[in-house]
């Protein structure tokens, strides 16, 4: 196999894996901060126990997120040297800024939070988890700005044989970024809210009313009920933001990457109309499709905001590319797309992404999100007015599935975003196959891929094992929190 094909698989595998940990890090850090704030304000130990319980799970998750993130930072240079050389002037800056503004903040303040319980006054200690949580969001800002630039390369021009930044404000004001940021942040809250609710719902049902500690309404069951409802509300509110921002995002996608929208819908001919297909079979040559179930006019609405609005089809866009090069929906191009077009014409490029992948990942993303939402609503219903759900098989299964539904929706959303961008690594500017490292052999990429897979696989086993151990242990007992001055006293926490 070609080195660049394996490099693409490697990027896909390592990035999807890394991204299992990212949404949890982004949103759970903030939810833990909120729990600790409630404890700080009320002094009620219930919230301290929740802080410590979910904080521990957050840290187990965070460790793998950190170490797999290192690979991401270096992978561009290792496997994609010509991409790095070509876009470094634009794309490198957000990565460097991410390290400088976000990684330092996250790592330093998490260190302070983990070890600082008995070293820092309560209020200052509370600030450290907020600083770390803000760091995770800043990280998302820079990475999403960088990725959005690959989808819609604004604020840059073709100069000195490479892409050069001309307007950093335009990179940060990229409409793709402005839509993707709220979509990703809210999608992260769906994951963390779902995780908090599912674990609490599972413990709550398992206690099933047999809670000896629960004499004053402050015991484990009451705490779990509170946490389940808290998580479910986070999940539901986040879902609404995901839907609104996703709708906004699909309209921008139609504008700047019409081919991606067409592929997401397996919409081959403009003349086919603008019905949204729910189920489709197509021929694998990718020239036409048979829509089995459709919603009339909905696609036009999703793509353009007008019921039955015209949506360009794959075949028409392909013809347009052959004649005029890469165009956005309104026929415009970014500066970089325009000036690089001449050079691009000499490269053989099949401009249609993998349609079945784009079509199905788009639907799986939405489907998983909706099921997650439904379970969130069920949790609120089942715990209404002090009710306690029993450990029925269906309930336990739903609790087991809930954390994975929004998490996998995140993965499928990104697989769609990146596969739908193909054949481009930078939309309309640089074909992916020209971006790989010429000095790296297929054997070397295979070797690294096998090593990563083995190590990542082992880490997954260890991670899940630890996660389940601490999950099952339930709410920890807590000692009074105070600053310890005695030099010889045991620390409240140590590795």
């Amino acid at each position, binding site marked *: 196999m070609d080195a660049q094909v394996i490099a693409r698989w490697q990027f896909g595998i390592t990035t999807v894996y890394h991204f299992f940990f990212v949404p949890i890090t982004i949103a759970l850090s903030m939810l833990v901060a909120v729990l600790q704030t409630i404890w700080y304000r009320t002094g009620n130990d219930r919230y301290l126990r929740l802080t410590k319980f979910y904080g521990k799970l957050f840290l187990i998750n965070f460790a793998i997120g950190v170490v797999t993130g290192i690979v991401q930072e270096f992978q561009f240079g290792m496997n994609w040297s010509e991409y*790095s050389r070509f876009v470094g002037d634009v794309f*490198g*800056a957000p990565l*460097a800024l991410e*390290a*400088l503004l976000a990684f330092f903040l996250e790592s330093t303040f*998490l260190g302070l939070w983990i070890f600082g319980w008995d070293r820092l006054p309560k209020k200052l200690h509370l600030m450290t988890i907020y600083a770390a949580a803000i760091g995770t969001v800043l990280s998302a800002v820079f990475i999403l700005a960088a990725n959005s630039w690959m989808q819609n390369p604004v604020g840059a021009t073709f100069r000195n044989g490479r892409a050069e930044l001309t307007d950093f404000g335009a990179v940060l004001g990229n409409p793709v970024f402005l839509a993707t940021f709220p979509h990703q942040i809210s999608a992260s809250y769906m994951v963390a809210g779902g995780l908090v609710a599912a674990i609490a719902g599972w413990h709550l049902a398992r206690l099933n009313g047999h809670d000896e500690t629960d004499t004053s309404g402050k015991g484990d069951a009451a705490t779990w009920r509170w946490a389940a409802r808290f998580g479910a509300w986070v999940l539901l509110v986040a879902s609404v933001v995901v839907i609104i921002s996703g709708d906004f995002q699909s309209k921008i996608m139609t504008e700047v990457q019409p081919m991606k929208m067409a592929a997401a819908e397996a919409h081959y001919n403009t003349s086919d109309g603008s019905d949204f297909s729910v189920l489709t079979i197509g021929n694998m040559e990718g020239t036409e499709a048979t829509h089995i179930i459709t919603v009339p006019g909905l696609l036009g609405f999703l793509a353009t905001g007008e019921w039955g609005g015209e949506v360009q089809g794959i075949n028409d866009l392909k013809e347009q590319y052959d004649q005029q090069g890469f165009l956005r929906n309104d026929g415009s191009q970014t500066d970089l797309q325009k000036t690089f077009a001449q050079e691009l014409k000499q490269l053989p490029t099949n401009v249609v992404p993998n349609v079945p992948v784009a079509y199905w990942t788009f639907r799986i993303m939405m489907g998983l999100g909706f099921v997650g939402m439904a379970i969130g609503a069920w949790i609120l219903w089942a715990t209404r007015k002090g009710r306690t759900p029993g450990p029925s098989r269906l309930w336990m299964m739903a609790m087991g599935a809930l954390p994975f539904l929004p998490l996998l929706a995140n993965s499928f959303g990104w697989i769609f975003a990146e596969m739908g961008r193909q054949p481009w690594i930078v939309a309309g500017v640089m074909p992916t196959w020209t971006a790989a490292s010429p000095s790296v052999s297929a054997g*070397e990429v295979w070797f690294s891929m096998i090593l990563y897979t083995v190590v990542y696989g082992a880490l997954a086993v*260890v991670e899940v094992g630890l996660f389940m151990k601490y999950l099952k242990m339930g709410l920890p007992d807590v000692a009074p929190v105070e600053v310890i001055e005695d030099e010889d006293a*045991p620390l409240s926490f140590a590795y």
Partner: protein
Amino acid sequence: MFPLTTVLLEAGHATLTPVWFLLIAVLWVGFFFLEGFDFGVAMLLPILGKDDRKRRVMINTIGPVWDGNEVWLLTAGGAMFAAFPGWYATLFSGLYLPLLLVLLGLILRGVSFEYRSKRKAPQWRNAHDWMAIIGSFLPSLVLGVGFANFVKGLTVAGDPPLVTTGFWSLFSPFALLGGVLFVVLFAAHGAIFIALKTKGDVHEEAKNLGTKLAYASAALLAVWAIWLNLAYAPDNPAAKVVTWITALLAAAAVAGAGFFSSKDSEGKAFILTGIGIVAMVSTMFVKMYGNLGFISADAPGLDMWSASSSPYTLKIMTIAAAVFVPIVLAYQAWSYWVFRKRLSTDNLPVEKDEAIPVGS
């Protein structure tokens, strides 16, 4: 402040490129200074950590700070990408396998610190200790070999310029000395750091070992200093003088660290191993100034001028660095201050259903 701003706004490629070379050198220096002792602490686990409680004391000296220290490497990598895309692209793809070893080491290491204490089974803890040991030894060794090769110069050819030095050619005698030097020097830096941050048995043993390791690294540094300056001196006459001074300073400082360690002044000793690392890494970057550690076999070649980003990008990055580097330094320094107390086995919280050791 205003004159500085004006200078920056009017600065062109000719000013910004050397400024960014300097900043990247600073990031690498900072990384080796800080992560140097983290690597050392973990590499010494089998030697100084004779039982689990001693090992825990050692790990807890770096527990709150190791991750922040490692970010210096990520920032150095990100800054190379942003400021010198040509450098980042050619170097990272050209040294594919060595870099892979560094990354794997860092993965194993990072996980080991966080997960070690999460189970009590001796097999679990042992496995995590070995992940930390290998994950610290491997990056130290590979980076030492790598930087020695930058001093010698990696050959590049073609357009785009790609590394033509083969994998096995990386292991020249000078490069192997570089690898051993990094390992021993970081171990010395780590031992003295442990001595500085602990009390009791761990403190005594770390101090004695730190003294020996510091003398050993000083000897290695002396050989390295002479070899580098005789065989791989920079072309520029002023730079030749500078590398003699900084390289010998590194050796002298680390010898001084051994002396102060033996006199129970581990604070001074730590500052001196630190100065030794700073001087050693600076020597290498002085040699790499301009050519970035590459020898171009043909046109267009690769140097810091051809590898660097546009003045516009460099300006934005300079502003960000000017604002945020001092802030980062301030809060990292604060975190060291928060965790300034020395640790001993007495400070370890008793683990649930663990027998309380006799005598405590």
